[in-house]
């Protein structure tokens, strides 16, 4: 898909069926900088499907995790960069992700995404098994991210189709009414 389509979808990524744990998205700040780039700071609230009985014991604030996301969109250079890191109440493990969307250098109707994740742990030595597990999850999530955007793009296209169809219907009705009145 062209870069404009992907970028528009990325701004409206949630909700989507591939990320059911994201329950809230808020814009904390948004502004266009002097060079014309759009900066957005967003807060994503996630809920990990913990059984409600556990939630009622420990309270929702402990089962929610939050992700802080900073994105920069340059409409001239056609780049979108997203940096996100989780905020947690314990701050033991942090996952920082960086995504960059750019038009494909050789195929202008396609977009290239590069994605990296940095996992850091404070003061605890993670076994290599756990590190491997997290790395696997992150790379399968990367695929999920692409599927999620496909889903959003299809949804946006369907909405446009629906709007166009109802506009055509309205025009036909008013033309028929005008012809009737003339007679």
């Amino acid at each position, binding site marked *: 898909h062209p870069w*404009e389509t992907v*970028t*528009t979808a990325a*701004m*409206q990524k*949630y*909700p989507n069926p591939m990320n059911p744990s*994201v*329950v*809230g*998205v*808020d*814009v*904390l*700040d*948004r*502004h*266009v*900088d*002097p060079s*014309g780039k*759009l900066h957005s*700071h967003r*807060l994503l*609230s996630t809920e990990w499907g913990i059984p409600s009985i556990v939630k009622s014991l420990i309270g929702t*604030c402990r089962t929610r995790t*939050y992700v*802080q996301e900073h994105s920069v*969109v340059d*409409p*001239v250079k056609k780049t979108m960069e997203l940096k996100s890191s989780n*905020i947690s*109440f314990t701050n033991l493990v942090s996952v920082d992700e960086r995504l960059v969307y750019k038009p494909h250098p050789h195929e202008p109707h396609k977009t290239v995404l590069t994605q990296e994740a940095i996992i850091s742990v404070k003061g605890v030595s993670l076994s290599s098994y756990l590190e491997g597990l997290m790395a696997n999850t992150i790379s399968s999530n990367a695929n999920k991210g692409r599927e999620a955007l496909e889903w959003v793009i299809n949804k946006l296209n369907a909405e446009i189709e629906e709007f166009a169809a109802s506009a055509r219907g309205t025009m036909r009705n008013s033309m028929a009414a005008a012809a009737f009145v003339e007679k």
Partner: protein
Amino acid sequence: MNSVGEACTELKREYDQCFNRWFAETFLRGERGADPCGQLFRRYQLCVQKAIKEKDIPIEGLEFMGPSKGKAESSS
């Protein structure tokens, strides 16, 4: 999609609709114009800031700036 503050969801939806339209139809086309969503954003922001304080969400290094930093203020 809901807001972190339940009371803010409706304000968020109104702002999102305005922003999504401006983003796709104006910003991505390289057109620079006054931001039509400023007022909606301010109302929504106030609500969200309050909700974040109430829920004690630890957001570090984030100053709550207005939407028109770096641009001329649009008259309302």
